[in-house]
């Protein structure tokens, strides 16, 4: 991790807690570079709304709306949780140089799979990003114990 990485990652944890408190899934994401935060978002995905509105997707779309691609090519996507296949691909398309994540997909998967609505796609973001010539650097899991707390008691039929 680089010097600011922990700070930005902890900001994604705060966004995940806020998303959960607002009735959404406990995920947060930040797009940032050396100049600071470009965009940030929590998950706003709901069963009857936009199923693509994951935290990372929301943050990347906001970032693309506010800064030119050239800046994103020097930016990092921070995610409280390892980005799913959709969000890893979105990061590639948005052009970010790096991804730094907290909790790993392989440990979230058994939690999510407790609920029909939460069951997802079991691919690591490194696997999704392995093939193109243009590489996205992936760093994680990071601060995993802190990131794990975001999911504490969340993934049950009553809440997820």
């Amino acid at each position, binding site marked *: 991790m680089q010097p600011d990485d922990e700070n930005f990652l902890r900001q994604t944890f705060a966004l995940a807690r806020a998303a959960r408190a607002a009735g959404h899934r406990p995920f947060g994401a930040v797009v940032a570079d050396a100049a600071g935060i470009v965009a940030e978002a929590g998950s706003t995905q709901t069963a009857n709304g936009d199923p*693509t509105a994951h935290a990372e997707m929301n943050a*990347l779309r906001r970032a693309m709306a506010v800064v030119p691609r050239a800046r994103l090519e020097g930016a990092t996507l921070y995610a409280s949780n390892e980005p799913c296949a*959709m969000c890893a691909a*979105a990061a590639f*398309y948005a052009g970010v140089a790096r991804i730094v994540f907290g909790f790993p997909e392989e440990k979230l998967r058994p939690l999510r799979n407790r609920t029909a609505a939460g069951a997802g796609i*079991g691919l690591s973001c490194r696997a*999704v990003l392995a093939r193109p010539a243009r590489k996205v650097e992936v760093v994680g899991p990071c601060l995993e114990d802190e990131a794990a707390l975001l999911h504490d008691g969340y993934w049950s039929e009553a809440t997820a």
Partner: protein
Amino acid sequence: MSRTTDDRDLALLRQAIAVSAAAAASGELPFGAVIAARDGTILARATSTEISTGDWTCHAETNAVRDASPRIDRRTLAQATIYASAEPCAMCASAIFYSGIRRIVYGFGETKLRQMLATRAETTGLGFSCREVLAHAAAPMDIHGPCLEAEAAAVQARYWNATSR
């Protein structure tokens, strides 16, 4: 779960290919998608809007999912099919899965599309077939394609071989 493609599927896929041609004519990337209910009723139509929005996640299939999901109940989507002029990428395949749509019919295949774009570094894709991505999904998906590939390929070739691009 699997349902073989029939004439209605091919007619709906032709609509998606027509949408892709209209997208190219309007200055967007040449991709189109149609979502139809089990009885063939069209629920959503979308083109790529990457060029006009500068949002590189606005692929046709993802746009169609974002349009349909808030309006259409999950039971209808669970019985619906998405028709895509070209094979959905890893992002769109995932978005389709998350929407609850479980059936995909596509035109032009990802392998051939990648070959067509191989000389253009900025457009190279992730190199995943949608079947490969969705083999990891928590529910089975019913995927058909390439279908009507010559018709779908003609739109792609017209766009990517144009000297002005």
